[in-house]
C-alpha cells in the first residue's frame, strides 16, 4: 500500500470520525445537560436513546427546506457549506497517534505534516467566521445580520489572545511550528527536569496561564456558552441561523460540534501531550510497536472526549456574558495576560537556557 493511498484512507476515516463524533456529541450534550439538571434525557430511540442522533439526522433531512425570497440565494447556500468546510479542514494537521509500521513501511497518522502546522490551524480558524458572516448577511434578516456581526467581531478579538497564548508554547518548542514536532517534544525529557515519567512532559505544566487563555479563546471561537452571543436565543431568536431550516441549519449545528471536537484535539495536542500518555516508553518495550500506536490514538481520543465533556459542562453551568463584558474580557484581560505570559516565558527561557 503506497503512502498516498494510506493518506487517502486516513482522510476518509477522519471525515467519518469527525461526523460520527459530531453526531454523538449532540446526544452527549443532551445527556450531560440532563445529568446536570437532574433529568433523564433522551431515552426513547434505541437502548439509552443511543439512536437519537440518527433520528435527528433523518428529521433534519426530511424537513421542508425554506430559502427566503428576499435572501441572496447563492450566498445563502454557500454560508453553511463554507462553515462546514472550515470546520473539517483543521483535522489535516493534527497528529492522531504514533506512526504505524507494516512491513518496514512507516505510516504517519497525520494527513499533512506541514512545518507551519500551528499557523495553519490559526489560519483556518480565522476563516471560520466567513461561513457565519455570509450566511447571516445573505438571510437578509436583522437578527441574522446582528448575529453575524457579533460573531465576526468576537472571533477577531479572541483570535489575537489565542495567537499570543500559542506563541508562548512555540517559544518552548525549539523553534518548530509543526504540530507533530510539538507533540513529540512533549513525550521526551523529564517534567521540570527531574520528574521522570515518560510521556508526561506536557506543556500545560509549564504554561498553565497560556492554557487557560487558550481554553477561554477556544470557547469564544467555537461560539459556545458563555460566549454564544452570535446565536443567543433570548436576544436574537437564533442569531445568524435564524432563517435557516432543514439540513442547512443542520450543517450549522453540526459544524459547531465538529469545531468543538477539533478545538479539543488542538488543546490536547498543544498543552496535554497529544497522543503521549504516562508510561509510553515502558509500554514500547513490552508491547509490539503497532499496539502502542493504537493505545496512543486511544489516549488522544480520551483527552479529546474529556475536553468535549468540559465544553458541555461549562455550557450547562455558566450563564451567558453580556456583549461589552465579552469584549472587555478579550481585550483588557486576556490580551495583556497573554502578552505578559509571552514575556515571562521568554525571560525564563533566556535566563535558564532550555
Amino acid at each position, binding site marked *: 500500500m503506497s503512502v498516498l493511498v494510506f493518506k487517502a484512507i486516513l482522510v476518509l476515516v477522519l471525515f467519518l470520525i469527525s461526523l460520527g463524533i459530531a453526531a454523538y456529541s449532540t446526544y452527549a450534550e443532551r445527556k450531560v445537560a440532563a445529568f446536570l439538571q437532574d433529568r433523564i434525557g433522551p431515552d426513547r430511540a434505541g437502548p439509552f436513546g443511543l439512536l437519537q442522533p440518527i433520528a435527528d439526522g433523518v428529521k433534519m433531512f426530511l424537513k421542508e427546506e425554506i430559502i427566503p425570497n428576499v435572501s441572496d440565494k447563492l450566498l445563502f447556500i454557500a454560508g453553511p457549506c463554507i462553515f462546514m468546510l472550515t470546520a473539517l479542514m483543521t483535522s489535516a494537521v493534527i497528529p492522531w497517534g504514533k506512526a504505524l509500521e507494516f512491513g518496514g513501511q512507516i505510516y504517519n497518522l497525520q494527513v499533512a505534516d506541514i512545518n507551519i502546522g500551528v*499557523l495553519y490551524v490559526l489560519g483556518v480558524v480565522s476563516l471560520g*467566521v466567513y461561513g457565519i458572516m455570509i450566511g447571516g448577511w445573505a438571510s437578509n434578516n436583522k437578527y441574522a445580520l446582528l448575529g453575524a456581526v457579533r460573531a465576526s467581531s468576537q472571533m477577531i478579538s479572541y*483570535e489575537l489572545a489565542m495567537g499570543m497564548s500559542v506563541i508562548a508554547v512555540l517559544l518552548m518548542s525549539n523553534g518548530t511550528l509543526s504540530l507533530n514536532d510539538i507533540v513529540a517534544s512533549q513525550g521526551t525529557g523529564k517534567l521540570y527536569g527531574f520528574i521522570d515519567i515518560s510521556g508526561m512532559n506536557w506543556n500545560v505544566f509549564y504554561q498553565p496561564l497560556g492554557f487557560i487563555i487558550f481554553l477561554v479563546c477556544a470557547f469564544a471561537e467555537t461560539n459556545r456558552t458563555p460566549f454564544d452571543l452570535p446565536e443567543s436565543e433570548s436576544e436574537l431568536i437564533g442569531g445568524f441561523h435564524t432563517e435557516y431550516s432543514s439540513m442547512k441549519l443542520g450543517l450549522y449545528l453540526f459544524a459547531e460540534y465538529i469545531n468543538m471536537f477539533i478545538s479539543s484535539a488542538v488543546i490536547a495536542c498543544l498543552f496535554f501531550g497529544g497522543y503521549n500518555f504516562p508510561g509510553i516508553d515502558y509500554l514500547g518495550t513490552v508491547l509490539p510497536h503497532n499496539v502502542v500506536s493504537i493505545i496512543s490514538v486511544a489516549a488522544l481520543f480520551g483527552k479529546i472526549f474529556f475536553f468535549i465533556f468540559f465544553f458541555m459542562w461549562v455550557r450547562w453551568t455558566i450563564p451567558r456574558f453580556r456583549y461589552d463584558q465579552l469584549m472587555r474580557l478579550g481585550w483588557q484581560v486576556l490580551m495583556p495576560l497573554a502578552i505578559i505570559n509571552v514575556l515571562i516565558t521568554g525571560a525564563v527561557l533566556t535566563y535558564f537556557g532550555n
Partner: protein
Amino acid sequence: MMNSQLIFFMLAALSILSALFVVFSKNPIYSVLWLIVCFFSIAGHYIMLNAQFLAIVHIIVYTGAIMVLMLFTVMLLNLNKESEPHKSVMYKGAAVLTGGMLMLVLLAAMRSTQLGTYVAPGRAETGFVQNVGLKLFTDFLLPFEMTSVLFIAAMIGAVVLAKKEVH
C-alpha cells in the same frame, strides 16, 4: 515541471479573473468575496514559490482579519445599487485620468524590465519560518523595527480617533 507549470497557469488565471470580478461586480459584497478568492490564489502562488510561511501569514492577516473587517463594514453600510451615490462627470474624468497615468507608468516599467529565466528556489533556502525569522532579525533588523514603530503609531492613532472627546 509540467505539473507545476499547469498549476501556475490555473492559479494565475484564477487571480486575474477574480481580480476582474472584484472590479466588475455590481454588488459590493460580491466584490469583497471575489477579493478574498484573489487573496487565496495569491497565497497559492506563494506556496508554489516555496514560501509557506508567507502564504499562511497572507491568509491569516489578509483573508482572516482585514477582509473580515472589510466585509463587516460593507454589510453594516448596507450598500446596494439604489443607494449608490451618483458621481459627477468631473470625478469620473479625474478617475480615468489618474488610472490611465498609473497604467502608463506600469507599462513603461514593464517595457524596461529584463525577463530572466525563472529558477525555483531550493527547499532549504526560502520560505520556512526559521529562515524568514533569521533574515528578519539579522539582515533586515532595522526595517523590521521601523515597521513595528509604524504599527504602534497606527494603533495609537486609531485609539485617538476612536476615543470620545472629554469636555
